[in-house]
Protein backbone atom coordinates (compact mmCIF):
# COMPACT_ATOMS: atom_id res chain seq x y z
CA UNK A 1 0.00 0.00 0.00
CA UNK A 2 1.60 3.23 -1.10
CA UNK A 3 -1.06 5.85 -0.41
CA UNK A 4 0.06 6.49 3.12
CA UNK A 5 1.16 9.77 4.63
CA UNK A 6 4.44 8.08 5.61
CA UNK A 7 5.21 7.68 1.90
CA UNK A 8 4.90 11.38 1.02
CA UNK A 9 7.83 12.96 -0.83
CA UNK A 10 10.44 14.75 1.31
CA UNK A 11 9.53 18.22 0.04
CA UNK A 12 5.96 17.80 1.31
CA UNK A 13 7.14 16.41 4.65
CA UNK A 14 9.35 19.49 5.04
CA UNK A 15 6.29 21.68 4.40
CA UNK A 16 4.29 19.71 6.98
CA UNK A 17 6.99 20.17 9.61
CA UNK A 18 6.99 23.94 9.07
CA UNK A 19 3.55 23.98 10.76
CA UNK A 20 4.82 22.24 13.87
CA UNK A 21 6.44 23.68 16.98
CA UNK A 22 10.21 23.02 16.80
CA UNK A 23 10.07 20.34 19.48
CA UNK A 24 7.50 18.24 17.61
CA UNK A 25 9.37 18.80 14.33
CA UNK A 26 12.76 17.68 15.72
CA UNK A 27 11.22 14.59 17.30
CA UNK A 28 10.15 13.25 13.90
CA UNK A 29 13.82 12.40 13.31
CA UNK A 30 13.37 9.07 15.09
CA UNK A 31 10.32 7.96 13.07
CA UNK A 32 12.31 6.20 10.38
CA UNK A 33 15.64 6.44 8.61
CA UNK A 34 14.09 8.51 5.83
CA UNK A 35 12.83 11.10 8.33
CA UNK A 36 16.16 11.54 10.12
CA UNK A 37 17.10 14.86 8.50
CA UNK A 38 13.78 16.07 7.12
CA UNK A 39 13.28 18.53 10.01
CA UNK A 40 16.65 20.18 9.30
CA UNK A 41 15.40 21.19 5.83
CA UNK A 42 12.03 22.58 6.88
CA UNK A 43 11.80 26.20 5.63
CA UNK A 44 10.40 27.47 8.88
CA UNK A 45 11.41 27.27 12.50
CA UNK A 46 9.02 28.03 15.34
CA UNK A 47 10.21 27.74 18.89
CA UNK A 48 7.44 28.16 21.41
CA UNK A 49 7.08 27.57 25.07
CA UNK A 50 5.96 28.76 28.45
CA UNK A 51 9.03 30.26 30.00
CA UNK A 52 9.48 30.60 33.72
CA UNK A 53 12.55 30.50 35.93
CA UNK A 54 12.49 26.69 36.00
CA UNK A 55 12.10 26.03 32.28
CA UNK A 56 14.37 28.75 30.98
CA UNK A 57 17.57 26.67 31.11
CA UNK A 58 15.90 23.72 29.41
CA UNK A 59 14.49 25.85 26.58
CA UNK A 60 17.82 27.57 26.10
CA UNK A 61 19.59 24.21 25.96
CA UNK A 62 17.05 22.94 23.42
CA UNK A 63 17.46 25.93 21.08
CA UNK A 64 21.27 25.78 21.25
CA UNK A 65 21.27 22.06 20.38
CA UNK A 66 18.70 22.59 17.65
CA UNK A 67 20.72 25.36 16.02
CA UNK A 68 23.95 23.33 16.35
CA UNK A 69 22.41 20.51 14.31
CA UNK A 70 20.36 22.64 11.95
CA UNK A 71 23.23 24.98 11.04
CA UNK A 72 25.97 22.36 10.84
CA UNK A 73 27.20 21.10 7.51
CA UNK A 74 28.48 22.96 4.47
CA UNK A 75 25.07 23.97 3.10
CA UNK A 76 22.46 24.35 5.81
CA UNK A 77 18.95 24.70 4.37
CA UNK A 78 17.79 28.32 4.13
CA UNK A 79 15.12 29.52 6.54
CA UNK A 80 12.19 31.49 5.13
CA UNK A 81 10.88 32.27 8.53
CA UNK A 82 11.96 31.79 12.05
CA UNK A 83 10.07 32.62 15.20
CA UNK A 84 10.92 32.53 18.85
CA UNK A 85 7.61 32.87 20.58
CA UNK A 86 7.64 32.50 24.31
CA UNK A 87 4.73 33.00 26.64
CA UNK A 88 5.89 35.55 29.15
CA UNK A 89 4.72 38.67 30.91
CA UNK A 90 5.24 41.23 28.19
CA UNK A 91 6.23 41.19 24.55
CA UNK A 92 8.98 42.43 22.28
CA UNK A 93 9.27 41.87 18.55
CA UNK A 94 12.31 41.50 16.33
CA UNK A 95 11.96 42.00 12.59
CA UNK A 96 14.78 41.39 10.13
CA UNK A 97 15.04 41.67 6.37
CA UNK A 98 17.94 39.79 4.90
CA UNK A 99 19.48 38.21 1.86
CA UNK A 100 19.97 34.48 1.82
CA UNK A 101 23.49 33.36 0.96
CA UNK A 102 22.57 29.77 0.17
CA UNK A 103 19.95 30.26 -2.51
CA UNK A 104 21.87 32.11 -5.20
CA UNK A 105 21.09 35.59 -3.94
CA UNK A 106 17.33 35.21 -3.80
CA UNK A 107 15.69 37.73 -1.55
CA UNK A 108 13.95 36.22 1.42
CA UNK A 109 12.13 37.98 4.17
CA UNK A 110 13.15 36.78 7.56
CA UNK A 111 10.50 37.46 10.07
CA UNK A 112 11.52 36.86 13.60
CA UNK A 113 9.05 37.33 16.34
CA UNK A 114 10.04 37.25 19.91
CA UNK A 115 7.58 37.62 22.71
CA UNK A 116 10.25 37.71 25.32
CA UNK A 117 10.15 38.76 28.92
CA UNK A 118 13.47 39.78 30.37
CA UNK A 119 14.55 36.73 32.29
CA UNK A 120 18.10 35.66 33.14
CA UNK A 121 18.75 33.41 30.13
CA UNK A 122 16.15 34.00 27.42
CA UNK A 123 16.46 37.75 27.56
CA UNK A 124 16.95 39.87 24.47
CA UNK A 125 20.69 39.23 24.29
CA UNK A 126 20.10 35.50 24.22
CA UNK A 127 17.37 35.67 21.60
CA UNK A 128 19.49 38.06 19.51
CA UNK A 129 22.33 35.54 19.64
CA UNK A 130 19.98 32.85 18.32
CA UNK A 131 18.69 35.17 15.62
CA UNK A 132 22.25 36.04 14.65
CA UNK A 133 23.00 32.35 14.22
CA UNK A 134 19.93 31.89 12.00
CA UNK A 135 20.51 34.99 9.89
CA UNK A 136 24.16 35.95 10.30
CA UNK A 137 24.39 38.54 7.48
CA UNK A 138 21.35 40.54 8.53
CA UNK A 139 22.30 40.64 12.14
CA UNK A 140 25.82 41.79 11.39
CA UNK A 141 24.60 44.48 8.99
CA UNK A 142 22.60 45.93 11.83
CA UNK A 143 19.19 45.73 10.19
CA UNK A 144 17.64 44.14 13.21
CA UNK A 145 15.03 46.24 14.86
CA UNK A 146 13.39 45.78 18.18
CA UNK A 147 9.93 47.08 18.74
CA UNK A 148 7.73 46.83 21.78
Amino acid at each position, binding site marked *: *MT*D*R*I*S*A*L*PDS*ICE*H*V*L*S*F*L*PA*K*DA*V*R*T*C*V*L*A*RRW*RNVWTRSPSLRVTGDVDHRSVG*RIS*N*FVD*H*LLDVRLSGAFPAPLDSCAFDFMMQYTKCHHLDGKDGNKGGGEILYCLICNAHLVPVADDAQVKRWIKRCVPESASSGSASVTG
Partner: protein
Amino acid sequence: MAAPESGDGNNGAARMVTLISSDNTRFEVEAAAASLSQTLQLTILDGGGGGGDGIPLPNVDSATLSKVLEYCIKHAPAAANGGAPNATAVDRAELERFDNEFVNIDQSVLYSLIMAAHNLEIEGLQSLVAKKVADMIKGKSPMEIRRTLGFPDPTPEEQAEMNAHMLEYGWAYE
Protein backbone atom coordinates in the same frame (compact mmCIF):
# COMPACT_ATOMS: atom_id res chain seq x y z
CA MET B 1 -24.80 27.64 -10.81
CA ALA B 2 -25.07 31.32 -9.93
CA ALA B 3 -21.91 33.26 -10.65
CA PRO B 4 -20.51 34.91 -7.55
CA GLU B 5 -20.21 38.68 -7.70
CA SER B 6 -16.49 38.66 -8.13
CA GLY B 7 -16.36 42.22 -9.43
CA ASP B 8 -13.45 41.40 -11.74
CA GLY B 9 -14.91 43.21 -14.72
CA ASN B 10 -16.48 40.25 -16.50
CA ASN B 11 -19.85 41.07 -17.93
CA GLY B 12 -22.37 38.34 -18.34
CA ALA B 13 -21.79 34.71 -17.53
CA ALA B 14 -18.53 33.64 -15.93
CA ARG B 15 -16.08 31.91 -18.25
CA MET B 16 -16.05 28.15 -17.86
CA VAL B 17 -13.23 25.67 -18.48
CA THR B 18 -13.22 21.89 -18.70
CA LEU B 19 -10.80 19.70 -16.77
CA ILE B 20 -10.39 16.01 -17.57
CA SER B 21 -9.39 13.60 -14.80
CA SER B 22 -7.03 10.64 -15.29
CA ASP B 23 -10.08 8.34 -15.57
CA ASN B 24 -11.55 10.55 -18.30
CA THR B 25 -14.29 12.30 -16.37
CA ARG B 26 -14.94 15.85 -17.56
CA PHE B 27 -15.48 18.62 -15.01
CA GLU B 28 -16.82 21.99 -16.08
CA VAL B 29 -15.85 24.71 -13.67
CA GLU B 30 -15.51 28.50 -13.58
CA ALA B 31 -12.13 29.66 -14.86
CA ALA B 32 -11.70 31.75 -11.70
CA ALA B 33 -11.96 28.64 -9.53
CA ALA B 34 -9.63 26.50 -11.67
CA SER B 35 -7.13 29.37 -11.73
CA LEU B 36 -6.41 28.88 -8.03
CA SER B 37 -4.08 26.23 -9.46
CA GLN B 38 -0.78 27.87 -10.42
CA THR B 39 -0.21 24.96 -12.79
CA LEU B 40 -3.47 25.64 -14.68
CA GLN B 41 -3.46 29.42 -14.45
CA LEU B 42 -1.22 30.09 -17.48
CA THR B 43 -3.05 27.60 -19.71
CA ILE B 44 -6.35 29.21 -18.75
CA LEU B 45 -5.00 32.74 -19.32
CA ASP B 46 -3.89 31.56 -22.78
CA GLY B 47 -7.50 30.60 -23.47
CA GLY B 48 -7.05 26.86 -22.87
CA GLY B 49 -9.72 24.54 -21.51
CA GLY B 50 -12.65 26.24 -23.20
CA GLY B 51 -15.02 25.07 -25.91
CA GLY B 52 -14.77 21.37 -26.75
CA ASP B 53 -11.21 21.13 -25.50
CA GLY B 54 -10.49 20.17 -21.97
CA ILE B 55 -7.30 20.30 -19.94
CA PRO B 56 -6.17 16.73 -19.22
CA LEU B 57 -4.92 16.05 -15.69
CA PRO B 58 -3.25 12.63 -15.98
CA ASN B 59 -2.17 12.62 -12.31
CA VAL B 60 -5.53 13.34 -10.70
CA ASP B 61 -8.42 10.85 -10.57
CA SER B 62 -12.06 11.94 -10.65
CA ALA B 63 -12.78 11.40 -6.94
CA THR B 64 -9.80 13.57 -5.99
CA LEU B 65 -10.46 16.20 -8.66
CA SER B 66 -14.05 16.53 -7.51
CA LYS B 67 -12.79 17.19 -3.97
CA VAL B 68 -10.13 19.65 -5.18
CA LEU B 69 -12.72 21.59 -7.19
CA GLU B 70 -15.04 21.71 -4.19
CA TYR B 71 -12.23 23.58 -2.40
CA CYS B 72 -11.49 25.86 -5.37
CA ILE B 73 -15.13 26.83 -5.91
CA LYS B 74 -15.53 27.68 -2.22
CA HIS B 75 -12.32 29.72 -2.09
CA ALA B 76 -12.45 31.44 -5.50
CA PRO B 77 -14.60 34.45 -4.47
CA ALA B 78 -12.27 35.33 -1.57
CA ALA B 79 -9.19 34.83 -3.77
CA ALA B 80 -10.69 37.13 -6.44
CA ASN B 81 -11.00 39.87 -3.82
CA GLY B 82 -7.27 39.68 -3.16
CA GLY B 83 -7.57 37.56 -0.06
CA ALA B 84 -10.83 39.34 0.78
CA PRO B 85 -9.57 42.21 2.90
CA ASN B 86 -13.15 43.43 3.28
CA ALA B 87 -14.61 40.02 3.99
CA THR B 88 -16.80 39.99 7.02
CA ALA B 89 -15.94 37.99 10.10
CA VAL B 90 -18.91 35.80 9.21
CA ASP B 91 -17.42 35.03 5.75
CA ARG B 92 -14.07 34.20 7.26
CA ALA B 93 -15.63 32.02 9.94
CA GLU B 94 -17.63 30.23 7.26
CA LEU B 95 -14.47 29.51 5.21
CA GLU B 96 -12.73 28.28 8.33
CA ARG B 97 -15.64 25.99 9.15
CA PHE B 98 -15.58 24.71 5.57
CA ASP B 99 -11.81 24.07 5.73
CA ASN B 100 -12.03 22.16 9.01
CA GLU B 101 -14.83 20.00 7.68
CA PHE B 102 -13.05 19.60 4.32
CA VAL B 103 -9.96 17.86 5.75
CA ASN B 104 -11.97 15.66 8.11
CA ILE B 105 -11.43 12.72 5.77
CA ASP B 106 -10.03 9.25 5.42
CA GLN B 107 -6.24 9.09 5.32
CA SER B 108 -5.99 7.68 1.80
CA VAL B 109 -8.23 10.51 0.54
CA LEU B 110 -6.04 12.98 2.41
CA TYR B 111 -2.97 11.47 0.76
CA SER B 112 -4.47 11.85 -2.74
CA LEU B 113 -5.51 15.40 -1.91
CA ILE B 114 -2.00 16.30 -0.73
CA MET B 115 -0.48 14.97 -3.94
CA ALA B 116 -3.07 16.75 -6.12
CA ALA B 117 -2.66 20.07 -4.28
CA HIS B 118 1.07 19.69 -4.82
CA ASN B 119 0.84 18.77 -8.51
CA LEU B 120 -1.68 21.52 -9.24
CA GLU B 121 0.13 24.02 -7.00
CA ILE B 122 -2.92 25.26 -5.12
CA GLU B 123 -1.23 27.18 -2.35
CA GLY B 124 -4.10 27.50 0.10
CA LEU B 125 -4.96 23.82 -0.22
CA GLN B 126 -1.30 22.79 0.11
CA SER B 127 -1.13 24.63 3.43
CA LEU B 128 -4.49 23.34 4.60
CA VAL B 129 -3.56 19.67 4.08
CA ALA B 130 -0.02 20.14 5.43
CA LYS B 131 -1.49 21.70 8.58
CA LYS B 132 -3.85 18.75 8.87
CA VAL B 133 -0.92 16.30 8.83
CA ALA B 134 0.98 18.51 11.29
CA ASP B 135 -2.02 18.31 13.63
CA MET B 136 -1.92 14.51 13.32
CA ILE B 137 1.72 14.58 14.52
CA LYS B 138 1.56 17.26 17.22
CA GLY B 139 2.10 16.13 20.79
CA LYS B 140 2.39 12.42 19.95
CA SER B 141 5.12 9.92 20.79
CA PRO B 142 7.13 8.42 17.89
CA MET B 143 5.19 5.14 18.06
CA GLU B 144 1.86 6.98 18.10
CA ILE B 145 2.94 9.01 15.07
CA ARG B 146 4.07 5.88 13.24
CA ARG B 147 0.68 4.29 13.86
CA THR B 148 -1.24 7.46 12.92
CA LEU B 149 0.65 8.02 9.68
CA GLY B 150 0.53 4.39 8.58
CA PHE B 151 4.15 3.33 8.99
CA PRO B 152 4.54 -0.44 8.97
CA ASP B 153 5.48 -1.91 12.37
CA PRO B 154 9.20 -1.43 13.01
CA THR B 155 11.49 -4.42 12.75
CA PRO B 156 13.54 -5.15 15.91
CA GLU B 157 16.50 -3.60 14.11
CA GLU B 158 14.53 -0.42 13.35
CA GLN B 159 13.23 -0.30 16.91
CA ALA B 160 16.80 -0.48 18.25
CA GLU B 161 17.81 2.26 15.84
CA MET B 162 14.91 4.46 17.00
CA ASN B 163 15.87 3.96 20.64
CA ALA B 164 19.52 4.80 19.96
CA HIS B 165 18.49 7.88 18.04
CA MET B 166 16.20 9.02 20.84
CA LEU B 167 19.13 8.82 23.24
CA GLU B 168 21.29 10.83 20.86
CA TYR B 169 18.54 13.46 20.65
CA GLY B 170 17.90 13.46 24.39
CA TRP B 171 17.86 17.28 24.38
CA ALA B 172 14.66 17.21 22.30
CA TYR B 173 12.94 14.91 24.78
CA GLU B 174 13.62 16.78 28.05
